[in-house]
């Protein structure tokens, strides 16, 4: 069914990466279309006229937008590897943390690393507090999903490679091993998982790209 499933994505986007990881876990073939976000294709504008963003998953001509929505769709459509927990309560908890990451944590990290010099200290404090919450949620588990990666791990993909690149590119240190031993270990294990490893963008190119996108380093 390769010709009936396409993913419009962007190589540096952690959101596109989430979808790639999920499709890999489900062992689903698809066509990948790289979008130039500075010169968006007619296809992208057609499938996502609302905010013209990637990722967009197109299944049998039907577009799906928003990475969290796409992940749930993938889990419901293809059997095999379970991305979401089976139990409704566990599922609600997983959705909660996924939303926490997207709505609170990632914006705070962006502000801490790339925001104005003026508000830097406060932004770093806020991001650190939020990371602490996630560190506590991980507890003694190998992954947020337990023994294997699940929804929250996939949504937390930004905290692996991208956060390292953010830190290198901006000069702001956030997720140090001393402050976040569990998350640091998780990050390593997550990035080593085969479904993740083969879908991560190259680190050096990513750092250069993020620097150019977000601005000057702190130092």
């Amino acid at each position: 069914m390769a010709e009936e499933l396409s993913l419009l994505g962007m190589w540096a986007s952690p959101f596109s990466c989430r979808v790639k990881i999920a499709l890999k876990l489900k062992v689903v073939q698809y066509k990948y279309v790289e979008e130039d976000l500075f010169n968006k294709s007619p296809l992208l504008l057609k499938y996502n006229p609302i905010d013209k963003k990637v990722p967009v998953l197109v299944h049998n001509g039907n577009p799906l937008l928003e990475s969290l929505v796409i992940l749930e769709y993938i889990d419901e459509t293809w059997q095999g590897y379970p991305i979401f927990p089976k139990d409704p309560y566990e599922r609600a908890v997983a959705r909660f943390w996924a939303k926490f990451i997207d709505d609170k944590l990632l914006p705070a990290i962006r502000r801490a690393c790339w925001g104005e010099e003026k508000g830097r200290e406060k932004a770093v404090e806020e991001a650190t507090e939020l990371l602490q919450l996630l560190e506590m949620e991980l507890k003694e588990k190998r992954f947020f999903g337990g023994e294997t990666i699940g929804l929250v791990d996939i949504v937390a993909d930004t905290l692996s490679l991208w956060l390292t690149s953010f830190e290198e590119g901006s000069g702001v240190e956030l997720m140090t091993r001393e402050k976040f031993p569990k998350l640091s270990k998780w990050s390593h294990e997550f990035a080593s998982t085969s479904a993740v490893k083969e879908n991560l963008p190259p680190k050096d190119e990513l750092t250069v790209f993020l620097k150019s996108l977000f601005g000057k380093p702190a130092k």
Partner: protein
Amino acid sequence: MADDEVILLDYWVSVFGMRVRIALAEKEIKYESREEDLLGNKSDLLLKMNPIYKKIPVLIHNGKPVCESLIIVQYIDEIWNDRSPLLPSDPYQRAQARFWADFVDKKVAPRGVLWGKGEEQEAAKNELLETFKILEGELGDKPYFGGETFGFVDISLVTFSCWFHAFEMFGKFSMKAEFPKITEWAKRCKQRESVAKSLQDPQKVDEFVVEYRKWLGVE
């Protein structure tokens, strides 16, 4: 499910709390509602059940908390899955429903037109009008956002209908003139008992908005 203990921590004028009330009513679930004093002191129970955000609504089901209104509504749908489905059964339709509910959360919920002033308010107003235009188009000639049946997207948006008059007052526009389909749709939804008994009186909402603006220091 006769032995279920269901408690809802709520706040009378919260659009998010209303969503949960509608869902519980649609499913005919008996629950205990507890009003939180949000502008005064939050209860120990709220702080314990939602330590991350300390916000309502929180659904406490047999002692276990579920937070975030759309997550709660999905949880309710999944647990009490033997009656009145709130989400469609088809995965693609479900994805559409999740997308649009999330769209309402991102674009309608902030209500910047009510809380800002000057340029900020003007910008928020324009964004709100643009958002309603998109929603008006998405609704089209369907009776409900989900099609023939009242569902998830309707629940996510209808609670704002008791805030429409406040939008009109502060945004200086007419919902009926600009968005006739949404206006009709809101009336249609209010014919459902679950909606009628869950929505707040628009006049009380207007009074609340005026008071809250003073509390925020906008006036």
